[in-house]
């Protein structure tokens, strides 16, 4: 019985197709959870919308671009102050959000004029900023506002500005994943190839699918600098709008997050013949493997080995200190999708941690193929898990720590299970060698938090349910 119908799902039996328990001798050729399928209403799914997949995840990361959200105020309010992606220019991307603040009359009579006015105002108010992305939202898509025409008009009137449009209302697709796709394809078709790049190194690449969460991009950039590799564009961590128009100038596309950004790498291959190399940036083994592959591509293996020797000398002892103490820890991962397969084997190999349950909000079939191939037996693989399912799964697998978002983290706190922010990190970055030590440190501090022992104690009886003792 590899597909599992949980007790809480007896009234929504179709959920059985979304939950897989891997047993010995099986792989994803035998069973694969249904994914990227319509959400069941009223289940308390964790999914977000397609608009947020475009704006919050990818476009809004850019450090020099006005994010003009054409719709009522909530779509702007909600996708602001909900991410940790700093930039090296004072976090312009996190400080501001723009909205056309659509009201009823604009819904009735159309909102194009209001959008046009809002665009001009935004450029007038911040005269140093010359780049903009305009997003549609549910109501402006439904009433059919032509945001492309407005963008064209504004660009004609302001020759020094450039505007990209994303037509991806919240109801498109079944999750935020649709928004990733729309932005990827729109960008390659409309913006890549527009600008020339100043080439300063014989080795050039784009780094794709890394959003500088907790400073990831900036940490990895140290490696590329040491290796003498010029990164033409970061898609989109700490990135700029214009660098992304130069993506066609790179020799190689290195992809970390294949789910959100694999599309543009594929198109760069198809349209410009630039090869795609997928790597995992979390974990020592994976990161080393990724750096070796990149260096092999450029023929700079020695430089790569020198970098790895230096990094391992610096960080491996610290990692091993944590590994010694984290061995056997049971971890659950409830995040978007790709981190399931990025993390399950890296925490096992590098830290001796057992991943006992994983839930993906927006992963597709290939994400589940990867994670089931890399993951262990006895582990649950869940697509679009909901709250009651989480309670039941927790009861079945009893995780010591859960990597998930802050809201679910607050929920499991009541069950005396510590969480580590699997989206924005507790104290990142988590990528690279230093980053994975950070992850190990945060996991260790979570699991050995003395408060958990106190919480488990009933002062009336003095009886405590056992929790892990802090290691010396």
């Amino acid at each position, binding site marked *: 019985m590899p597909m599992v119908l949980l007790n809480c799902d007896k009234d929504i039996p179709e959920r059985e197709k979304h939950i897989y328990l891997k047993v010995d001798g099986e792989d994803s050729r035998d069973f694969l959870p249904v994914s990227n399928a319509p959400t069941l209403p009223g289940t308390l799914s964790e999914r977000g919308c397609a608009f947020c997949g475009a704006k919050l995840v990818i476009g809004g990361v850019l450090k020099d671009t006005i994010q003009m959200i054409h719709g009522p105020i909530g779509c702007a309010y*909600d996708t602001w102050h909900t991410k940790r992606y700093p930039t090296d220019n004072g976090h312009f991307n996190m400080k501001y959000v723009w909205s056309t603040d659509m009201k009823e009359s604009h819904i009735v009579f159309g909102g194009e004029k209001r959008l046009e*006015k809002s665009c001009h105002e935004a450029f007038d*108010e911040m005269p140093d900023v010359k780049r903009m992305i305009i997003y549609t939202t549910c109501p402006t898509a439904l009433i059919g506002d032509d945001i492309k025409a407005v963008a064209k008009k504004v660009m004609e009137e302001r020759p020094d500005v450039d505007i990209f449009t994303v037509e991806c209302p919240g109801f498109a697709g079944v999750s935020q994943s649709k928004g990733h796709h729309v932005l990827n394809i729109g960008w390659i078709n409309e913006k890549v190839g527009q600008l020339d790049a100043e080439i300063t190194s014989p080795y050039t690449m784009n780094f794709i699918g890394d959003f500088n969460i907790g400073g990831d991009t900036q940490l990895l950039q140290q490696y590329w600098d040491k290796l003498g590799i010029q990164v033409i564009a970061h898609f989109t961590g700490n990135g700029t709008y214009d660098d992304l128009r130069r993506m066609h100038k790179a020799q190689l596309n290195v992809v970390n997050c294949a789910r959100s950004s694999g599309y543009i790498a594929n198109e760069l291959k198809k349209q410009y013949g630039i090869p795609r190399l997928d790597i995992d940036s979390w974990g020592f083994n994976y990161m080393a493997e990724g750096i070796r592959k990149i260096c092999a591509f450029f023929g700079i293996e020695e430089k790569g080995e020198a970098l790895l020797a230096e990094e391992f000398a610096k960080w491996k002892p610290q990692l091993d200190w944590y590994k010694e103490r984290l061995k056997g820890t049971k971890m659950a991962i409830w995040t978007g999708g790709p981190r399931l397969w990025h993390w399950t084997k890296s925490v096992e190999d590098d830290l001796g941690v057992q991943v006992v349950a994983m839930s993906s909000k927006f992963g597709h079939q290939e994400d589940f193929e990867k994670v089931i191939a890399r993951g262990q037996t006895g582990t649950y693989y869940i697509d679009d898990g909901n709250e009651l399912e989480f309670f039941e799964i927790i009861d079945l697998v009893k995780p010591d720590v859960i990597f998930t978002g802050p809201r679910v983290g607050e929920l499991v706190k009541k069950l005396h299970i510590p969480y580590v922010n699997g989206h924005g990190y507790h104290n990142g970055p988590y990528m690279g060698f230093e980053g994975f030590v950070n992850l190990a440190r945060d996991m260790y501090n979570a699991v050995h938090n003395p408060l958990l022992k106190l919480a488990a104690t009933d002062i009336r009886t003095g009886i405590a349910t056992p929790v892990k003792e802090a290691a010396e």
Partner: protein
Amino acid sequence: MGCEITTRERAGVINPMYDCQPAGAQYAGIGVKDCIPLVHGGQGCTMFVRLLFAQHFKENFDVASTSLHEDSAVFGGHQRIQDGVMTLARRYPDLRVIPVITTCSTEVIGDDIEGNINVCNKMLKEEFPGRKVHVVPVHTPSFKNSQVGGYSECMQSMFKTIATAKVAPSGKLNLFPGWVNPGDVVLLKHYLKEMGIDGTVFMDTEDFDSPMLPDKSIHTHGRTTVEDIQASTGAMASVALARYEGASTATYLNQEFEVPAHIVSTPYGIGNTDKMLQKLSEITGKPIPESLVKERGIALDALQDLAHMFFANKKVALFGHPDLVIGLAEFCMEVELEPVLLLLGDDNSKYKKDPRILAMKDKVNWDMEVVCNADLWELEKRVTDPNYKIDLIMGHSKGRYVGIYNNVPMVRVGFPTFDRAGLYRKPTMGYAGAMELGEAIANTLFNHMEYNKEKEWILNTW
């Protein structure tokens, strides 16, 4: 000198102060026990609002979505409403209230909410004969009003659906504080108890600050029950503390069930709290007890140490919910702070005629500006204007960068305050709230003096 009331002139918003209507409706919904709001719209309309609540309260709240996808946007989302309601009812056997909250998309599509609820009611009756689930239509298109109006709208809709009959007079009091923190609810309940008044706070959000218990049970939910709402029609009176968040429900109970409605000044600061307590005394005939005279005295005693030494002539910018901003401005004047900028964040045309604002207009002897339909760019522009002096910002966490990057001290108050620990637990209303706030202002100014080496030696002896 004097007060000028203006409106944002730009069409677009840069850095909004409020979320949209459905967010406010969800906040009202989670205040009810055994209630899971069902938001009829895209998934982001729910997911982000749950995250927002979690950020502010450091707690999880259950809100469901109909998960509107493209096919529903084209052909209508009727089936998804029905599936959503029935799935919730089946999987959550204790569930008693489901507010169906519309959004911009489903209002544009024009889904017949009332019609679908009728269908749901029939199905519920058939499947669960002994059980009553109140399915409440809540119309909150995001392109009207804001989270402030959405809160009010959902509250009123729940009362309209649940409080349908006049019950026998109970001698109880309905108290509508508006969108406040658990700390305020605890304070108001304490006042009722001290005065010997049997009252119900709508919504009772005390447990939005909930414990980690040895038995791992979860108590993070509203305490207001279906019975509380039904009993509201037999109350001796309703007192609304927030004109724009809950007063409409008091008015509804007055119009439908002749429960006298009193709208009092929101009790921020000493004077406003005095007025509220005097009103409660007047309505119930219960005297204000010695204990509250003492609490008032302790607050005055604390604030007296701060006002003319540290606060006087300091210019303050305020932003947040309208009742909060107006109340805080009144509080500021009590402690000799000068509110120079009041930002109200939506297009409600009533703000300009609010008697409290008009009264301040007569009172101020400095330049004061009230900007309606404001965004936080209005704040940033003034803070960065060398001719516009602002010594202190008071508002919620969405304005944090304005303070941080311009080196202006900022006191977090209102909703959300996710970048400071534990504020939801503290009262802002009442005497204790005034004292907490005054001391938070003082300590924020002191920190600022110290980190900027601005006469920090003053505190060498105090």
